[in-house]
């Protein structure tokens, strides 16, 4: 029984997996970065499907927007070219890749089986107000800590990327 929600999920999941595969298979970093943007926007669609509107908005604005812009900026700044073809050994190609694929399928299968009994909670709209109340009441101390973390990360990035005066 395919409801409209499941159909939307399947389409978005196909886009996500295709984007992730494209990230692996593309040789040029800029193509990989654009594939990652596709994955992130499709993930935002999945968050919307689960009623997490604010997380979806943050995903698009911060992840697909800010972080990926920084990535693309650095790729262009460093003039990153095509990646050389890795000379994978025959063992890795004929044993490692199939084993990895089997492992991936098996993990996905068992996670699916082990969590099959979890029913989705009745779809109650999670309001952004509830979320922000929780964030600024119970989690206000971790929240302030993260702002401190961002500040320190910015300072660290500045110090690292600054050009030495002596050179």
């Amino acid at each position, binding site marked *: 029984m395919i409801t409209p*929600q*499941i159909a939307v*999920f399947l389409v978005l999941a196909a886009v996500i*997996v295709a984007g*992730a*595969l494209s*990230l*692996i298979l593309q040789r040029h*970093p800029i193509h*990989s*970065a654009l594939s*990652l943007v596709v*994955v992130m926007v499709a*993930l935002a669609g*999945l*968050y919307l*499907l*689960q009623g*997490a509107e*604010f*997380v979806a908005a*943050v*995903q698009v604005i911060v*992840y697909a927007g*800010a*972080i990926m812009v*920084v*990535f693309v900026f*650095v*790729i262009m700044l*460093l003039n990153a070219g095509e*990646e*050389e073809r890795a000379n994978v050994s025959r063992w890795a190609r004929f044993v490692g890749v199939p084993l*990895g694929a089997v492992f*991936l399928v098996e993990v*996905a299968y068992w*996670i*699916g089986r082990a*969590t*099959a009994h*979890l*029913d*989705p*909670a009745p779809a*109650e709209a*999670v309001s952004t107000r*509830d*979320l922000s109340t*929780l*964030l600024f009441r119970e989690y206000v101390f971790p929240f302030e800590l*993260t702002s401190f*973390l*961002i500040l*320190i*990360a910015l300072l*660290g*990035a*500045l110090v*690292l*990327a600054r050009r030495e005066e002596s050179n």
Partner: protein
Amino acid sequence: MVPTSYFLVLSAVLFGLGVIAFIFKRNILTVFMSIELMLNAVNLAFVTFSRSLGQLQGQVFVFFVIVVAAAEAAVGLAIIILIHRNRRTLDVENVDSLKD
């Protein structure tokens, strides 16, 4: 409604693809992107459990993960710029001075 297990299976597959990209890619920027891919898979699992258990804490943790990812991207890309400036390469195979 979409069953919870669908989302979790997708999250596992996405994380696995991130690990594969992390191991196979040789450009240091793409390796960094695969870390972001894995973080996104974890975020999906957080939101899924948040809905499945009817608790909002999962979404709060997603914010923290996104903030940490932003900080990590800032510092990590600065380090990549530094590596490029010092070694003129972006290939992880050529950054091996700890091997010697």
